[in-house]
């Protein structure tokens, strides 16, 4: 299985939207995708059309095995598991990550994890094949946080494949284009693709769907398709 962990470098970067859209973009390339919500906000399901009244998820069960009924499948064939309403310890979350890898699915399936921004990835037992996409926005605080993270990664003994992924990029903003210029030429570990600001992403959520389905000719659709292709290439390099 190919594991991708997506987390915001801070709150509100749009990570959950990326998980949902990326999952659908991969599905459209006939990849098997399982998306697991590790964030207590538990709103990943809403992007896949899960009813608002449905609040339970894996955290409401004593074990992962007993939570199998909480797996859902959306119209595109993305399998997803909501977080639920209870809190979960780091150990419990780690156990969920390990158990998800034991699922009886295609060996080439993608496991996408929507991680909370506050969670330290050092707490998870990640391997060198695991890909971490840390979602950033083009602002000065993210710039500061990127370099703090680089210092932390430099000193860490754990080696996963870490990338910074720009979301919600507004090319009309002088500050954002300045930051993009700096990051693209000087910042290590920047993913070579970025997601442009597009109203379609917010609108599609209001329609209980993803941009990939609602606006197939949008900038957002292109961006998520490019992101999915890049990840397929990265994963192929791992094999």
């Amino acid at each position, binding site marked *: 299985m190919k594991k991708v962990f997506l987390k915001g470098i801070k709150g509100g970067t749009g990570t959950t939207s990326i998980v949902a859209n990326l999952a659908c973009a991969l599905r459209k390339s006939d990849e098997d995708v399982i998306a697991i919500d590790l964030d207590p906000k538990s709103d990943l399901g809403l992007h896949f059309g899960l009813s608002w009244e449905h609040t339970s998820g894996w955290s409401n069960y004593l074990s992962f095995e007993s939570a199998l009924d909480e797996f859902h499948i959306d119209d595109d064939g993305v399998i997803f598991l909501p977080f639920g309403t209870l809190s979960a310890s780091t150990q419990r979350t780690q156990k969920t990550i390990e158990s998800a890898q034991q699922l009886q699915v295609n060996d080439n399936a993608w496991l996408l994890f929507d991680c909370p921004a506050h969670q330290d990835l050092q707490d998870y037992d990640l391997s060198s094949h695991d890909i971490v996409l840390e979602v950033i926005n083009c602002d000065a605080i993210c*710039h500061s946080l990127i*370099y703090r993270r680089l210092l932390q990664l430099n000193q860490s003994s754990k080696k996963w494949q870490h990338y910074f992924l720009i979301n919600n990029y507004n090319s009309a903003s002088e500050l954002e284009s300045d930051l993009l210029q700096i990051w693209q030429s000087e910042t290590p570990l920047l993913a070579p693709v970025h997601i442009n600001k597009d109203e379609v992403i917010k609108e599609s959520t209001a329609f209980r769907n993803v941009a990939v389905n609602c606006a197939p000719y949008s900038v957002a659709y292109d961006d998520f398709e490019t992101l999915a292709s890049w990840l397929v290439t990265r994963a192929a390099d791992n094999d």
Partner: protein
Amino acid sequence: MNEFSVKKSNILTQYDIDNLLSRFGGKTSSYIEIVDVQKNNQIIEKYPLLSDVSRSCEMFDINMNTK
């Protein structure tokens, strides 16, 4: 009658690419990055927070160690 100016483009041959790589790419690199360092410095100097981060990171040599 209008006279349209045509911008001529040059396509690099494999010989040109090999020459550029041997001059700027080093022995193991298979690509060359062109960075406008002066422009980047101007951008960094424009924003106090970016200047602050840049000065601190020079001490840790982040670019050299992680890229």
